[in-house]
């Protein structure tokens, strides 16, 4: 029993938890706010770029592909450090939260562009032809006919990717964004106790588990399509 007591005192210490819960809750707010902004910006950017790519203007598509490749191949933490420590020296000072938002937004944008583009190319050619033959222009066919079908098709992979990237908001800790993890590591070093880290892990599970389960449901919901 004393082992269990020691375990609880180390990882679920009531006094420590009570003291640092407000700080971690403020971190929850920061994480939620950044996550929502990143998901909105990244998805909009990805869909917009995939639509632009549908016009198949060579030089434009080329630039989009290069951007998408670079942001899919590089670890976000490298880009975060590069932007945070490099940009101020060329006169562009961004706050740590702004750097995190921009880099993760661009990362999600790159993945979303590739995923939505895959959906657009997988949409049956007859859909384009039927839409055009009713008198819709290219842009109208894209927006009203092809894109809705493409987006529906790619919702499961897009959801998975969005979850993976919003979880990366924890990387902001490294450059001092006051998110959940940052509050927890600070509290842990002040209190000399691991309970704030446990609380942080619980907070992340509470935030993200519903979305993980949602993505599982979406996958089984859409999987009949594969036949």
């Amino acid at each position, binding site marked *: 029993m004393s082992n269990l007591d*020691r375990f609880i005192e180390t990882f679920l210490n009531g006094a420590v938890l009570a003291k640092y819960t407000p700080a971690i809750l403020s971190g929850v707010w920061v994480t939620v706010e950044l996550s929502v902004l990143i998901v909105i910006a990244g998805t909009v950017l990805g869909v917009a770029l995939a639509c632009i790519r549908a016009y198949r203007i060579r030089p434009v598509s080329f630039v989009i592909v290069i951007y998408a490749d670079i942001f899919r*191949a590089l670890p976000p933490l*490298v880009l975060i*450090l590069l932007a945070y420590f490099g940009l101020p020296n060329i006169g562009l000072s961004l706050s740590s939260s702004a750097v995190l938002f921009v880099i993760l937004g661009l990362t999600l944008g790159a993945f979303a562009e590739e995923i939505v583009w895959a959906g657009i190319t997988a949409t049956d050619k007859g859909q384009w032809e039927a839409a055009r033959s009713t008198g819709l222009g290219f842009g109208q066919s894209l927006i009203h006919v092809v894109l809705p079908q493409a987006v529906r098709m790619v919702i499961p992979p897009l959801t998975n990717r969005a979850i993976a990237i919003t979880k990366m908001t924890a990387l902001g800790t490294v450059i001092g964004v006051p998110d959940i993890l940052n509050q927890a590591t600070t509290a842990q070093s002040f209190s000399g106790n*691991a309970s704030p880290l446990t609380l942080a892990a619980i907070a*992340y*599970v509470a935030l*993200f588990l519903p979305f993980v389960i949602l993505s599982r449901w979406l996958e089984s919901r859409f999987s009949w399509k594969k036949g």
Partner: protein
Amino acid sequence: MDQLVQQFFNIDIMMRAWPAIMRGLGMTLLICAVVIPLGLAGGLIAALASTAGSRWLRWPAMALVDLFRAIPPLVLLIFVYAGLPFAGLRLSPFAAVAIAFLLNNSAYYGEVFRAGLISVGKGQWEAARSTGLTQRRTLIHVILPQAIRNVLPDLISNTVEVVKLTSLASVVSLGELLHAADLARSVTYNASPLTLAAGVYLVLLWPVVRFLGRYQRRIAV
């Protein structure tokens, strides 16, 4: 413009950081060599458990997979590295990285393998069993080869993510690629070593990302 080149593409500073960054690359590759096989093995076990016939095996396995998919890998790493010492378990940075990544990667590889196992029809099991193969042999010789082939693109793309993930090891001061570059950055007050590290990651991963895009498109058709 001049300042931009000076700050991000300073050849002098890159040359000086080169040896350290190459040592860092060696450590990154070492981490990959440990973490990828561990994750694949853990993932396979997780997938077998989460597709098992008994719900007493299936449900806890799925719950664990979802749990570790919900926790950011950096949180897991810091918990293992900075939290466990309070319980008297002091791990080296390398061991902490290996354990945290094992938990995280097993969950992700597990989901990929699970999709693969489900994609193989039940008839394959029945046919193999009826030829007299044992359950284990059926799994190894009939089911797994088909399952893996069906999810190969996802396995590769997940492995790209694992390689990118090794950059988190820099947070616990394990001297891998990003850590070496960031150390050089802090000594020289110049971001060029980070640009160089980004270049190394690109050389390493861009071909795979490119190849994957083509491969997936071919499969989609």
